[in-house]
């Protein structure tokens, strides 16, 4: 579900980035306003825990395995806004330290895994436990919310791919939905197990969320905001495909130009005497990059040799 760079197009990943950044900024504000320093430290350790728990693999039908994601679990135990921040931090570490998921796609990955997942999970869990506040309701609610959150996040990722014109809508939703409906069973079972364990051992941890209630209004605002962004993104995507922008215009021309460019031309082919055209400029820039790199390499080599000589001289 970690979308890498290069898969989403600008009309999709830019709104996704803006949308996630907005929601997370709001979440940060809420967390700072309502939580003490101590609770924030606790939340940070929980972020490390969720990251570690993502290494929890379990078998899925067909010999493959899924892994625990934890969005709904975080929302149930920590509350909605802290859970969003925790999940966003997890996704960010994966992207920045492990190149697991792209940087331009980070906004989209945050949107699906850190915002939609916890939002849906939190909503379902609250709805179920509000109906009946029993142990069974909580455990079942945990299972249902984790399963639905998992499927919802996957469907959202599918929609983003569709918006970027990377995959046809129905098949991509079908594939993502089917697969994550299976993975979601494991996710749900583990989340239910977690909640039932906490109910038996430390029921006070589950009640903590009550101290930081996500009031319905702000949740609704967030949901509406996300919906607005989605509509704008859809609009931009359609417009972009109707009127090829600069990017796609270049792209269309490339279809033909691709064969022309020489494969054997080395790093910087098509050297023309400066005077005109983007290609020439690009060639000059590429030449500059080459010059700098060569310079630094030679400089590094020389210093290495000099220091070795100095060592030998001693």
């Amino acid at each position, binding site marked *: 579900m970690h979308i*890498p760079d*290069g898969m989403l197009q*600008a009309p999709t990943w830019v709104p996704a980035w803006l949308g996630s950044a907005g929601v997370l*900024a709001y979440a940060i504000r809420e967390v700072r306003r309502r939580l003490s*320093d101590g609770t*924030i*430290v606790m939340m*940070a*350790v*929980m*972020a*490390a*825990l969720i*990251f*570690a728990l993502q*290494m929890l693999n*379990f078998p899925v039908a067909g010999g493959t395995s899924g892994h625990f994601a934890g969005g709904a679990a975080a929302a149930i135990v920590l509350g909605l806004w802290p859970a969003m*921040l925790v999940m*966003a931090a997890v996704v*960010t*570490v994966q992207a920045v*330290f492990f*190149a697991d998921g*792209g*940087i*331009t796609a980070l906004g989209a990955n945050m949107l699906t895994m850190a915002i939609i997942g916890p939002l849906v999970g939190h909503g379902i869990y609250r709805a179920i436990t509000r109906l009946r506040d029993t142990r069974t309701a909580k455990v079942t609610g945990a299972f249902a919310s984790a399963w639905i959150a998992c499927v919802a996040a996957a469907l959202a990722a599918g929609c983003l791919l569709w918006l970027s*014109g*990377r*995959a*046809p809508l*129905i098949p991509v939703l079908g594939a993502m939905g089917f697969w994550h409906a299976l993975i979601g069973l*494991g996710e749900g079972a*583990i*989340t239910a*197990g977690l909640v*039932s364990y*906490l109910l038996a*051992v430390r029921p006070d*941890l589950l009640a903590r969320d009550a101290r930081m209630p996500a009031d319905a209004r702000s949740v609704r605002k967030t949901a509406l905001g996300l919906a607005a962004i989605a509509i704008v993104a859809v609009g931009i*995507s*359609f417009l972009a495909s*109707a009127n090829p922008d600069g990017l796609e215009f270049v792209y*269309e021309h*490339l279809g033909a130009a*691709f064969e022309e460019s020489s494969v054997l031309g*080395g*790093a*910087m082919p098509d050297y023309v005497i400066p005077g005109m055209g983007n*290609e020439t400029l*690009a*060639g000059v*820039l*590429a030449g*500059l*990059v*080459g010059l700098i*790199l060569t310079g*630094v*390499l030679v400089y*590094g080599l020389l210093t290495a040799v000099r220091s070795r000589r100095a060592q030998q001289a001693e």
Partner: protein
Amino acid sequence: MAGHEHHADGFHQHPHEHAGTPPHRHPHHHRTDEVAVPHQHTHATSFESLTYIVSPVHALDARAKILAALVLVLGVVTTAPLRPAEFALFCILLAAVAAIARLPLRRLVGRSLAVLPVAATIALLAPLQASGGSWNAAGLAAAWSGDGWLVAWGILSKAWLSASCMLLLAATTRTADLLQGLRSLGVPAVFVMLLAFIARYVGVLGDQLHSLRIALASRAPHLRGRALMRALGSITGNLFVRSYERGERVYAAMLARGYTGTLPVSTTARMGAAEVLLIVTALLAAFALALY
């Protein structure tokens, strides 16, 4: 883990009896099973050790490296599918940086290739789609004139090059510097703190998870299906409680050391000629991609 004491040397005791003797204890070593053998400690970054190499690139300011990586990724992502010359230029650029940084190229490349299976699943849809018609937002207006394979190449090459950029950043920047760099580039303090705690504690908690799984596997090696899931749920709950309590201890320790709500910052940042050169090189490369 109740009643199961884990000692560093692997020896431990539990009460048991031999025929004809009363129950007693003596230290012994368990036969290692397949769960216990591939014990890898989980580290914050897969390249933690590489960040301690001494090189000109490692010595650069983290902000400059972050910005350069961002510029390069943006350049790669927003350009049209890379032509062979562009691709070669970029590979040479990355290889040169890796060489200057004295990084083991093979290990770096091996790790970067991990992005390909993920990207390939979607990339391979593109040729199908190009031949199959327009069921999607972008295709509705039939703007896709390109060959589907070119699209697939674009996705794969961009995913790989971007991932390589980020891995170079991660391999040449120490975790603390990287976090400090993000902070000074305007990422909110609370968020950087979350990242810092993930980097610092994922190893500890990952090891705890690992020993819990060994404990589970040694007591109930044949768990399947719902029973396994319930056990994994209990492991998760157990870790939650322990992490929560760890959080309380960590906070107490932080208070004892004078924590006032913000993490301390070391100010060794500098933006010298080398940093500017790096950013300028990245900009030049990105523009070369965009213009060519």
